[in-house]
């Protein structure tokens, strides 16, 4: 189980709006007024389905939103600094060094012509200004830390020669070698075999906590967060709809969408039916300003269609964005 986090905020996102303009059509709003605060040493699980905006969020934090997307408004503060005020050089100093990303599908994302050992070493070389020999030694030590068997031989291997699990460990080594204070893991374990996934998750959690770093763990699999995160955040249609400490979340999920996500794991279709329905069109006269989840919500009332709910925090730091949160 995860231990308690320290105080102090490392990442503060306020009312972030990101959209992708589309030629001759309405832009796609990937993130809408998203708020998120992550403390030092905290691991937050961010759960969402496809199209919820979770990958856009990851890229926004890295200030690498894919063209033609752009930030419309809002702030991302890292360790007190507004990232939008930094120039390209300063951002490059942060990336890979202080803020690192663990990516999925490593075999296609690693350079096929460079040995994995050198790819790890390169990050150390350029960020920590190390001479080649030292960087190589560090990379080797990192390979051991991520428990790759036979690290000396694997150093000289190329990405296509590694299995999925090993490539994932290499990517972790790259992310962690400069001891970053903040790590984003974007769906890093999807596509891995279950037994390998367990090993990788244990390892990631250990290393992150050893370094006292914070992590934003993005995933589609809500089950993982129950075992590896301090807090759980649910993202839907570009905003956070629920945020709570893990235990509180799973004992008392309050947002209807969260309950719907959890019901997907239940073996009881009747129960599932109680919490999900096909998307409905808004009723006549709806203002269009209502809750984004209303079309699929079984509890939607007129107020839900009319007024956009704010994220309200109840006791025990449990935030819900809903007019009619579930009460037990």
């Amino acid at each position, binding site marked *: 189980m995860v231990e308690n986090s320290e105080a102090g905020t490392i990442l503060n996102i306020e009312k972030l709006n990101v959209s992708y303009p589309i030629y001759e059509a309405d832009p796609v709003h990937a993130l809408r007024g998203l708020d998120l605060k992550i403390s030092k040493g905290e691991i937050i699980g961010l759960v969402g389905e496809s199209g919820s905006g979770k990958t856009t969020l990851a890229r926004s934090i890295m200030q690498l939103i894919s063209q033609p997307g752009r930030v419309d408004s809002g702030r991302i503060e890292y360790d007190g600094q507004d990232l939008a005020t930094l120039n390209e050089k300063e951002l490059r100093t942060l990336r890979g060094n202080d803020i690192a990303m663990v990516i999925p599908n490593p075999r296609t994302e690693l350079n096929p012509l460079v040995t994995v050992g050198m790819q790890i070493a390169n990050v150390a070389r350029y960020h920590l200004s190390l001479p080649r020999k030292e960087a190589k030694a560090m990379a080797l030590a990192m390979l051991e830390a991520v428990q790759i068997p036979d690290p000396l031989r694997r150093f000289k291997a190329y990405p296509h020669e590694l299995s999925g699990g090993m490539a994932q460990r290499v990517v972790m080594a790259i992310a962690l070698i400069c001891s970053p204070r903040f790590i984003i893991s974007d769906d890093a374990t999807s596509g891995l*075999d*279950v*037994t*390998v996934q367990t090993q990788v998750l244990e390892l990631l959690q250990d290393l992150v906590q050893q370094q006292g770093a914070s992590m934003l763990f993005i995933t589609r699999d809500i089950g993982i967060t129950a075992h590896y995160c301090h807090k759980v955040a649910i993202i839907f249609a570009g905003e956070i709809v629920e945020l709570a400490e893990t235990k509180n979340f799973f*004992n008392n999920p309050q947002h209807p969408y969260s309950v719907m996500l*959890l019901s997907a*794991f239940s*073996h*009881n*279709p009747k129960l599932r039916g109680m919490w999900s329905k096909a998307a409905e069109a808004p009723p006549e006269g709806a203002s269009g300003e209502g809750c984004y989840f209303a079309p699929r919500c079984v509890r939607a009332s007129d107020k839900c269609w009319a007024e956009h709910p704010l994220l309200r925090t109840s006791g025990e730091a449990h935030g819900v964005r809903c007019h009619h949160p579930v009460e037990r």
Partner: protein
Amino acid sequence: MSDVLTVKNLIQHFPIAGSRSVVQAVNDVSFTVARGETLSLVGESGSGKTTVGRCILGLINPTGGDISFHGEKIDKRNNVRGKNLLGKIQLVFQEPAESLDPRVRIGVTIGEPLRSLGERREEREKRVREIARRVGLGEDSLYQYPAELSAGQQQRVGIARAIITNPDLIVLDEPTSALDPTARSEIIDLLIRLQKDLNTAYLFISHDLSTVRYLSHRVAVMYLGMIVEQGSAPDIFSRPRHPYSIGLLSSVLLPNTNLERSSEVSLQGEIPSPIDLPEGCFLTSRCPFVETQCRAEMPKADDIGGGHLVHCFKHDNVIDEEKATLDYFERFQEEAEKLLISGQ
């Protein structure tokens, strides 16, 4: 015989170009699927479960062993493309987007199998509409292209296309792996409903254990081309006897913080390559219970009763050490139901 499919001692080895080694994809696999039941093949990458699926369709000649469908032998000469079996065995693929022709409208795609069977246009269109209703696709979607549908809807199309010929057996190769959790549960519900209505047998290939628990009557756990354990779903999930099965099941992460993932058994290392496998049991490099006998010979199937077969010399010891109860999935189910009901 109510067995729709019988697989006996199936072996499939693929030669590697330019060398004398072979990829031992499937090594002596035997199982049966009865009418209207679901048998799931579970395993990780390299387990050979996808190859077994392909052998069953008769698209490759097995290196050894037999496959028979309703007592008739299946091989390259008598396979799903032949007149005999056309439409009786169907397939649902993993990536719905890639298995649908992007330039063909949904309605046409669904009706394609009937075209191969020679049905006429009016008949076909009637059937397509009926099937679309059954799988929960609106009539307008029949005129759309795959790119206009969500992943869940695309998979419904794949399923519609599979059931339209009223097959006796459907092979489903990881049909929900590419879907979001909510879409996944809807598709599984649909599959269960369809099975009840049409009495179709399913061979369900997957690595998603909680789905398998829900959907299957019987389960076969595969590792490096072998079935290490098979039996009824409750037996396998609550009383697994093979170290690999236990290791696999304990890796499943269910969304509940209260339940202890109770297992003394953990599998180290990674799955070895299926080329040049060692003598003896394939799990020896990772098994915490390994001893000399395991390295010397391959354990044969041990029948524990009720159709529960285990391939392990040490399974008695395994169950001794595995003291904690393994009703993880049952307990989760109870807690989940309580949680869901209480919110209403």
